[in-house]
């Protein structure tokens, strides 16, 4: 069975690709559950777009829209989509995914400044974000990989900055990670549904379900990731075209 980590692994490799392009290493893949296949992907494009709103999730939404054609069709598919994103969606993206009616979100590390799935606000559950139902947001999948990519990014931009702020920002920490307060994002019963009864000690202790880092995902450049994702997404388009013809 394909699990959360397989999908998140694709998102992590895509984030690594974004890092190599000089963008913030945040990336997502949209998985269409009935097919078990990626149907859209996105990375941050705030530099390219000249806006502060071209986040990975919006790039994926645009990508999907150009594949399926209409907004109405997007709404129809949304419930069956799980979004795998390396960093918790910000409030804007969390609200957008909610208004779109997305089925579920799985993320790596928390977005301490702007997180909209529990860190700052709960846009996935609160009433004000609209008519399209709530969604569950599962944190902590490949969290350390996501954090490492962000650390690479900050160390790099700090090296380039004319006035480095302080020593700790120049030093790359590969061993210590903040605790994960699961309760901010999931009820204990939801945690058990996602990870199983045997993992509940992590819920109570605020520890990672997986402590071992898959360094090859973080460290190896992945120029082939775009091709791979494109190949996967095209399978969805073919599948859909066949169905339309029948």
């Amino acid at each position: 069975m394909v699990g959360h980590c397989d999908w998140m692994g694709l998102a992590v490799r895509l984030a690594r690709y974004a890092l190599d392009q000089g963008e913030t290493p945040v990336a997502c893949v949209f998985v269409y559950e009935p097919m078990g296949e990626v149907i859209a992907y996105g990375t941050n494009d705030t530099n390219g777009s000249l806006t502060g709103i071209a986040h990975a999730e919006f790039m994926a939404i645009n990508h999907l829209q150009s594949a399926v054609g209409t907004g109405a069709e997007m709404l129809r598919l949304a419930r069956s989509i799980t979004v795998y994103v390396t960093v918790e969606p910000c409030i804007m993206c969390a609200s957008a995914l909610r208004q779109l009616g997305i089925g579920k979100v799985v993320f790596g590390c928390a977005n301490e400044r702007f997180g909209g799935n529990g860190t700052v606000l709960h846009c996935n559950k609160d009433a004000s974000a609209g008519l399209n139902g709530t969604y569950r947001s599962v944190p902590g999948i490949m969290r350390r990989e996501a954090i490492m990519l962000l650390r690479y990014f900050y160390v790099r931009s700090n090296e380039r900055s004319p006035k480095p702020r302080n020593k700790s920002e120049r030093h790359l920490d590969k061993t210590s990670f903040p605790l994960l307060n699961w309760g901010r994002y999931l009820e204990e019963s939801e945690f058990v549904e996602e990870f199983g009864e045997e993992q509940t000690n992590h819920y109570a202790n605020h520890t990672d379900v997986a402590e071992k880092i898959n360094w090859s995902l973080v460290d190896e450049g992945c120029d082939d990731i775009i091709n791979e994702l494109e190949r996967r997404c095209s399978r969805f388009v073919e599948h859909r075209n066949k169905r339309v013809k029948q």
Partner: protein
Amino acid sequence: MVKKALNPLKIDFKKCIVEDCLLQIRNEKNLEEPELINVWTIQINAKDSKLLIDFIRSKILDEDGIFLNHIKRIRKVEGPKKMLEVVLCSTEFAQDEAACMSLLTNCGFNYQNLSCENLIPKQGAPTKELAIEWSELYWPLNWCGNPNDQILNEYTFDIDFIREKLAQITSISQEEAKKGNKVPVVTAFVNPCDAEHPIVSTDQRSEVNDLVLDHSIMIGIRKVAEDTKLKESQLTDSTIGTDSTYLCLNFDVYTTHEPCSMCSMALIHSRVKRCIFIRPMSKTGTLRADSGDGYCMHCNNSLNSKFEVFQWIGNDFAPIEIESNLCA
């Protein structure tokens, strides 16, 4: 700084209303509770207080981005020796102990107990009673009036210009409704450097091909970016736009309906300066304290970004009402 009495605008400081028509939107719920920040403190001998005051004046006051005029810098330490505890600077200005120590080299006086454990209110208290209460709870404060009075007094408003923009978006909203737009929300983005050419956007979600996320504010932000790219491409030298990651930096935004969480956050990401809306959205709005889930996105303490928000409460503009469950 204009004295309150000399401000040509009519401001009701109690109700926070400017010229009887612009209501300042604040988070009334968190006014009674101070937002606390850590500061660096040291202890010194009372006899060194003059040296210390000179040191703070010359090395800290102009440099520290966090203003601490609302607190008393110095308090007495209980005990037999005449010791004083002093707020040195914010933890933002000196990020670690080493930074503090290097700041203090050659300061000319002895100090001890360098610490960042003390919490102080980030801003002055809104009433004298609260100032006394907070002084006892946290750190001695000065009472120099409600800090919000000063904030309101320092805002600038061109009421005629504001009226003109609101009239413009209202009439477009009415036209859109006539054309069959089921969500006639309209926004105008005004660049402070080019106020004569606002960028106006309308909600696109009822168009068949468009998305439920095509709210007027999202469309407007993208239009501003396109507009800038176009202007840049027409210029031979690329002097503007070299630092244009946040393209709506300091823009004023006029919108017919109180924005939803997606759009409010998009305004924060875009670094706008001010948003004025006309119709509150009681279920889906995210600016008024009594709208939706009470997010108060523009003055939410856990979101470090701030922008000014006002609601037009004069009854001269009536953009089309939209269904209360919809996000504007």
